């Protein structure tokens, strides 16, 4: 497999245009490409649509000021959010109430599966989650179907311009390995965007991650960024 270019976080941020739709792996910023996000913040670009489980945290595990994409929200660089839970970032609700931010909420399993569907070439997802709830009014809900006597919602696939992965180890061919709970949405997001950038704590030689243990195949990754070691 060809080696993937290793670039800086700043170079990665420069590839992301104003107004891009960006998938950000991470759950409360665990497993998030935080160095690239910092550079996006510094770039001042805006109008982004963010697709992520949540909008990360205003304070990091060791008291860091801003931890992940919460800073993009804080800096008014985001126009639309597609997420499952935004309760840890009150600014999302405040900006939404003020009319400055569109927010679309989906159940966690549904968001994961809609992204997976896009990356797996499926036309949608049929899930029992959300039947007879506000999810039926979501623009991502295409209708209801009854199969063998049970109701399911038909949910649309979700695609992005860019996916930013937060990995622990990435080898020179782009194969990724996630430590602990870092994996979360990263593995599905790696398959559902036009441009995929894997930020990693350690760039390692090919072979260090055994083929059986690769979580994201290198063919999904376009660029590698070496981030902060934690």
């Amino acid at each position, binding site marked *: 497999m060809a080696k993937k270019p290793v670039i800086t976080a700043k170079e990665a941020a420069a590839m992301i245009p104003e107004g891009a739709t960006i998938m950000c792996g991470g*759950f409360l910023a665990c497993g998030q490409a935080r160095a690239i996000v910092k550079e996006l913040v510094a770039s001042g670009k805006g109008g982004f649509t963010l697709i992520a489980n949540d909008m990360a945290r205003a304070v990091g595990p060791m008291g860091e000021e801003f931890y992940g994409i919460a800073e993009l929200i804080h800096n008014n660089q985001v126009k639309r959010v597609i997420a499952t839970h*935004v*309760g840890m970032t009150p600014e*999302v609700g405040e900006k939404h109430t003020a009319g400055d931010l569109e927010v679309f909420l989906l*159940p966690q*399993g549904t968001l994961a599966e809609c992204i997976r569907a896009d990356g797996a070439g499926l036309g949608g997802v049929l899930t029992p*989650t959300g039947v007879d709830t506000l999810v039926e009014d979501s623009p991502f809900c295409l209708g209801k179907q009854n199969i063998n006597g049970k109701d399911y919602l038909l949910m649309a696939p979700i695609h992005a311009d860019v996916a930013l992965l937060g990995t622990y180890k990435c080898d020179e061919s782009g194969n990724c390995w996630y430590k602990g*709970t870092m994996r*979360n949405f990263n593995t599905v997001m790696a398959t559902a965007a036009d441009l995929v950038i894997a930020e990693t704590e350690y760039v390692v030689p090919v072979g260090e991650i055994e083929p059986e243990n690769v*979580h994201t195949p290198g063919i999904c990754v376009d660029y590698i960024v070496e981030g902060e070691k934690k």
Partner: protein
Amino acid sequence: MDKSEIKGFIAKRCAKELKNGDVVNLGIGLPTMIPRYLPEGVELVIHAELGIVGAGANPKEGDANYMPYHVTDAGGAPASVAFDGSFADSASNFGLIRGGHVDACFLGALEVDMEGNLANWIIPGKKMPGMGGAMDLCTGAKKCIVCMEHTAKGNPKIFEKCRLPLTAARCVNKIITEMCVLEVTDKGLMMTEINPEFTVEDVKAATACPVLVADDLKSMI
């Protein structure tokens, strides 16, 4: 009972629902107290939304497994995996939930009704939290058990029909409060156990829907 005694009482009763090896997901707050009250010989497999199948105890700074940047729970706090547990990505992890591989989920409620509908994720017009994994859990877990104080500031939380937006429809199997245990049946809510500190009339007065009383009504204690 004061507030913390009430929570402990409810958690203790919830623990009786579980048997050794059950895979359970515990919501925030009161449900996280349930493992303290497990009978001897009952060990659970804790399923966590963030992708831990078999979670361990929350580690403290200085512990060997304290990894606040790599292993966290759904509240962002450092978490751990049991020696025989595993990690999963979100799609696989929620596949386990929807696919019926979680035996029970315990969670609180803003409102619950006699049809087993549950509302616990949003109060329109108030702050915006999001449903997170709650809708999948209530829909997919084999048993959905609501554990909560029977009333909120004296006002009922159990209705004929929920008024708030639902988390999931017809999903609740059992409601456990400091007053009683209610089972959701085709006929409505059936009280199967009562806390002897209260009378059947007390329970009915605190519940905004009809309460059926089991022929063999038992004591919660």
